[in-house]
């Protein structure tokens, strides 16, 4: 029904359809204008985010006290500067096992049995803004929050 009526309309009143409000030229123009505005909005947002990310990831932590969390609770607290011998910490929980390597001033996830291995690929813990996170095993390694700067900044980011 609809189709036949369309074809007759197509042939008989072509000008009407071309000029119909659905495909009005003024609307086509406004698409382009809107698209341009959105492109600018997203570009600005992208540049801001990139800047924020570069800024965040280049800060090095003043404190060397590291906290290891499992299932949201603190498991170990280590001052990396006081570590003399390289050692491993094995965390086994209900979700899986993670092996953490600690040496003087450095900490990293040595191995994990999580499916994605993103925590291992993260490498060394650099600053408090990019903690080592193993979401499948719910393990987080991060620098201790010094009460002044970091908390305030965390609030601002959120």
């Amino acid at each position: 029904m609809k189709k036949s009526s369309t074809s007759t309309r197509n042939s008989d009143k072509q000008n009407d359809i071309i000029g119909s409000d659905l495909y009005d030229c003024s609307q086509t123009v406004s698409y382009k204008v809107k698209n341009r505005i959105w492109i600018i909005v997203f570009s600005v947002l992208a540049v801001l985010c990139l800047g924020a990310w570069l800024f965040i990831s280049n800060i090095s932590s003043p404190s060397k006290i590291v906290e290891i969390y499992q299932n949201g609770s603190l498991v170990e607290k280590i001052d990396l500067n006081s570590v003399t011998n390289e050692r491993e910490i094995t965390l086994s929980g209900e979700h899986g096992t993670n092996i953490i390597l600690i040496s003087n001033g450095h900490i990293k996830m040595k191995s994990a049995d999580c499916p994605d291995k993103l925590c291992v690929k993260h490498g060394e813990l650099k600053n408090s803004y990019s903690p080592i996170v193993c979401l499948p095993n719910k393990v987080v390694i991060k620098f201790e929050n010094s009460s002044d700067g970091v908390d305030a900044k965390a609030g601002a980011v959120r």
Partner: protein
Amino acid sequence: MKTNKPANSTLKQNFTAPKPNGQIDIPRTKKLILTAMLTAFALVAFVIEASIPPLTPIYGIKLGLANVFTLFALYSLGTHCAAAVMSLRIVLGSIFTGQLVSFIYSVSGSLLSFLLMILLKRFFQLKQLWVLSILSAVTHNIGQLAAAIFMTQTPAIAYYLPVLILSGIIAGAFTGLCAQLVLIRLSKINNNLD
């Protein structure tokens, strides 16, 4: 001015192609089959993407190819079918890839982004699909991040917000443009067949 848009004018009463406002007259059986097919495609895209090792050591950064099919369903078949495509893809995808732990992150991100999609869809017509796609990708990442913060009880993960927004913009633009260009091409093909 008016005569330089003849190609689009025939789009209006097309049988299978979506109108700019997303409504469509499709028989129920055809709709069901299209929904099932789109779900299968989305599932394949999801499984392939899940089997590729992640590019960056940051959670939530991925292309989200399966979202192309959700967007396609949303604009060609409507809200209900899109909801079916997405929810089936999440459940089956989690089972197929065996990542049941990431199920919660996936669900929370997807629910939030889908709510945003159906709420804002009326403001974005076919030629602005990419905008809606970016917005939903960004919301998806924010929802996932919120779920991760809640699950690990670690607010410090919020520092990933800028990079997740950035990746949402890039991935959303890509998937949105894919769906948008395919929908526009398909409507032109259908026109020529008529």
